[in-house]
């Protein structure tokens, strides 16, 4: 199984670098995972990371994209969904479902998505 060393601890990941163990996640590791994706985390990223993690621990699955976009619209006071969508892709260019899940330490969404 792939893994990386972080602060003296071995962190296991799946083939694509998603954390294998939910409890391994912390803010420093999020920063490390984001950097690997070419992302520098800002306050705006953190708001989404925290929201998506709350959702996951409540529902055992990542939120639907529409829910995420709606949340962003609200959090950032944006005028419409189109703008919110653009905003999310600026933060997570490879797509919010997968890249956000990865940085937030959640499993990769599966299926036709």
């Amino acid at each position, binding site marked *: 199984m792939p893994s990386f060393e972080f602060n003296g601890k071995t962190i296991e990941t799946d*083939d*694509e*670098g998603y954390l294998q163990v939910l409890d391994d996640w912390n803010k420093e590791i999020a920063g490390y995972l984001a950097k*690997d*994706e*070419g992302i520098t985390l800002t306050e705006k990223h953190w708001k989404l990371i925290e929201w998506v993690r709350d959702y996951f621990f409540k*529902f*055992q*699955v990542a*939120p*639907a*994209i*529409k*829910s995420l*976009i*709606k949340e962003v619209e609200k959090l950032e006071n944006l005028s419409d969904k*189109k703008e919110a969508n653009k905003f999310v892709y600026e933060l997570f*260019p*490879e*797509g919010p*479902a*997968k890249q956000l899940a*990865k940085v937030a330490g959640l499993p990769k*969404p*599966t*299926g*036709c*998505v």
Partner: protein
Amino acid sequence: MAKAKASYKVPVLTGEIKVPKVVPGASAYEKMYQGEKDDMAALGFPASLEEGWEIKAVGIFKQLLTHNKALRDYMDICVRCGACTDKCQFFLGTGDSNNMPVGRAELMRRVYRYYFTPAGSLFKGLADAEPFSMEMLKKWFTYYYQCSECRRCSYYCPYGIDTAVITMAAREIMNGIGLGQKYSTVIIHKVFNTGNNIGIPSAALRNTLDELEEEIKDATGKDIKIPMDAEGAEVLLIVPSADFFAMPHMESLIGYAKVFYKAGISFTVSSYASEAANFGMFIGSYRNTQEVNKRIWDEAKRLKVKRVIAGECGHAWRAMYSYSNTMNGPFDFLDSKYRQPTHICDFTLGLVKDGAIKMDPSANDDKIITYHDSCNVARGSRMGMMPEGQFIIPRELIKACANNFHELRNGTNKAETYCCGGGGGILTDEVMNVRIAGSMPKMQAIREAMDNKGVNFLALICAICKTQFTKMYPLYGLDAEMVGGIHQLVSSAIIL
């Protein structure tokens, strides 16, 4: 770790589809992740590849040849005429001769000749036969997962050889010796655990549906519901779980809900059968296909519905329409007045024709639309009662809810449609370059329609196609918003 976007090889769109220079092994580097132990075991396969796999593989191969007369014929009857060579989008995109349908099939035929024909076992290499070596197994694992089982090549084969049957058999043999593909096996395991490919549990699904109902209410002022697990509803609606999760898929779900609302027909989705897709079919496993499919009919019985309607999902329609009856039928507990199952496009168009719902096509006047025929609908099923209904019905429905429609050029649509490049269980990121290569022919046809007819919207009826094109469009420099389901058009046009 993540493959950098920069490493993607994206072809230039000129509108033309050219046959590439042949380079054997050109796409050998793109490989699937292997299936993990617990997923493999849950599907009834050995957890991993073990000593003695060759003998076991030949044994499974023999069983398949005995059970599946077609497979045996497909091994024997190819005359190497070459008609299929330039018909596969993965060959056209990669130039790899192992992705010519005959080249891909030859990987299996060489093994077949060695073990199952007198000439092959006596004369070996002279008879184009070779033993099932690790090197050959690696080629199988690579190239039988660079096929989307779209059957475009079969359409042109003068002998009617169904190459998808060969790919499915290869995957079944590999799974049987413990060499699985992660993407499909994870997904099937999730269906067994949660009812759907994504792994959405019941409470999460209800929450998503509540939010959608709210959104519809905000947009229309109407109380349009999406009931879940409602016993006694007339219709059980089976949609791909992407319709509960992804974009633009969710827009079609809103469209279905509006149709049921306006027609006054009660419906329900199910948290147990929360998936139309059937990846059991992709991996050629009869047992897994049957088990995934069975959930739908068990749920139809439990909820006491009168009919089952399938949402926008290409291979799901094939699995439900073409195989349900023999796998899990008969469905004599459902109302015999209706076709079981009914495709949502057939259902909605029927309501339009009966005058039960009305459309305002001008609502889609900002769109100049073309339609992509999904492989498994086009070449693996029918729709409605008339011949070629699977081509006619989606087009009639688009035209009922929009004024501007153009066909993609001949040779790229209907029975000759190119795959989106993500079908058959290969819609996974580790083979992104194969997906890009495979999308090239259809993308060229779309580019041509954009340039010559001003097309700005691609209408689809498949969750895989929607995800694949939404991923591909930006890579080719196009806006992903130009992709959506037919019921997204319905959603805009329906007069509530």
